[in-house]
């Protein structure tokens, strides 16, 4: 297998949440990103955050069906991490001239923009969920994220029957939607 096809395989794996693919990407590229961040006034915690964000960017790209990377995975990840870190530095007013002056070799702006837009939605939902509080949060997560059916949920949460659980879920859902849509901006 050529490097190209291996990388295509990794991307497909990533898109399907395959742990093995994620581990491989992690092993191959994490040290590079760590050096980049630490040499530009970051910590190893920063490095972890940035690398994982970059993998999310990559994931979104893989999910969108375009497995066509116009560069090596390494180059792509490096460029994305650099961009993300630069933004973080600017946000914290710790602007690093060296990092900004280096020219971007591949175009990743679009991917990063998509990621950032989705990130806004993600954070909004997370915030809404946090505000909801328990047990609503757990109830809705069980139903919508873990895709459990109402009788399972009734058992788990101790409701006498599925209808009561459904009723409770409805109330929680209405509150969540209210919080979410109060701040949601259409793309």
């Amino acid at each position, binding site marked *: 297998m050529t490097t190209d096809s291996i990388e295509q395989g990794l991307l497909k794996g990533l898109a399907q949440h395959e742990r093995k693919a994620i581990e491989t990407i992690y092993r191959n590229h994490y*040290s590079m990103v760590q050096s980049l961040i*630490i040499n530009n006034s970051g910590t190893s915690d920063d490095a972890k955050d940035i690398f994982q964000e970059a993998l999310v960017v990559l994931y979104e790209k893989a999910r969108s069906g375009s497995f066509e990377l116009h560069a090596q995975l390494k180059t792509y990840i490096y460029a994305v991490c650099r961009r993300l870190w630069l933004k973080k530095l600017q946000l914290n007013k710790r602007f690093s001239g060296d990092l900004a002056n280096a020219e971007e070799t591949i175009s990743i702006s679009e991917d990063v923009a998509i990621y950032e837009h989705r990130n806004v939605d993600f954070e909004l939902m997370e915030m809404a969920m946090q505000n909801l509080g328990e047990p609503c949060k757990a109830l809705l997560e069980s139903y919508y*994220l873990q895709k459990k059916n109402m009788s399972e949920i009734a058992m788990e949460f101790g409701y006498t029957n599925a209808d009561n659980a459904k009723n409770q879920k409805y109330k929680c859902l209405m509150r969540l939607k209210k919080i979410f849509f109060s701040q949601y901006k259409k793309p």
Partner: protein
Amino acid sequence: MEELNMLESIERYIRGEMLPEERVFFEGLRKNNPDVDQMVVEHTVFLHQMEKYGDRKNLRSTLQDVHNALFESGQIRQSKETRVVRLWLKYRKVVAVAASIAGITALCMTAIAISLSSKTASKSIEVLNRKISILDQKQNSLNAKLKETPPKVPLEAEFKLGGTGFMIDTRGYIVTNAHVVNSASMVIVQNNKGQEFKTKIIYINPDLDIAFLKIMDSDFKAPPVIPYGINKSNLELGEAIFTLGYPRDEIVYGEGYLSAKTGYRGDTLACQISVAANPGNSGGPVLDKNGDVIGILSNRQVQAQGAVFAIRSKYILSALEEVKSDTAYTGIHLPQTSMVKNMDRIQQIKKIQECIYMVKSY
């Protein structure tokens, strides 16, 4: 309860869980009821967001898992950044800025100090005095002992200032700067052969910066004649001049020219000459090419190297008039004409140096 059922229907509709005939019925309802339609649209967006939220949440937890697992198994390592390095990396720009500011401040302070000090006239004139070290004093007294002549200076006396003086009357009258002998308890002069003579200050005028000394010593042998005259006429710019003085223990000759007819800041008492002068030259004669004294070398400006000022010789005369008002000194006669005119410079110096004295104030 109705709304609850409606929402459930909407969810089933969006997920495509409805039976075909149920679906047709619901779509009819949607078409006819804008409220239901709006609810469907809104809920579609919401479910979509929920889906993505769950997806990303999942991914993040997987990533975190992978990170921890790889980290624990040592397949990725935390880079070896020490705390110091991290602090340095974080604050190196701040440090650089701080250092620059400190540097600039230091420069500014220096600049301010320089500009302020230049405004004070009194400080900008360096009086041409010379402090002779205690060693020299000891050496001199040792020399004197070797010659079996008792030292003229009491050993415990402290040597304060040194300068130059020149004789204007063979009976032992010497002219020097007032600042050389000012506040001196005793003044000793030394000739070019190293002999010392006690003197008495007979006149001192700090305004003119002129003082007259009289050698009061039995060892003193009067020279037959004063080789130079005192030139009272006007001076011309560019006129060649020369000086003789004791900036060190040896007599030193210097050559230059008259560079301005006034002294420091337009002082009409003095004139400016360009000649290499050092502390210790104070009180020495400034002579023209004929060997006539045209002035007394007095001081130099600190900033301008080579700008030396000399008191014009006509003020020696006016000072002398004041000296003569004391009946004891009415007999002083200034040398009128140079004896060394038309001689070559080496011969002139040979004659003149015998009448130039080192003046030492104690």
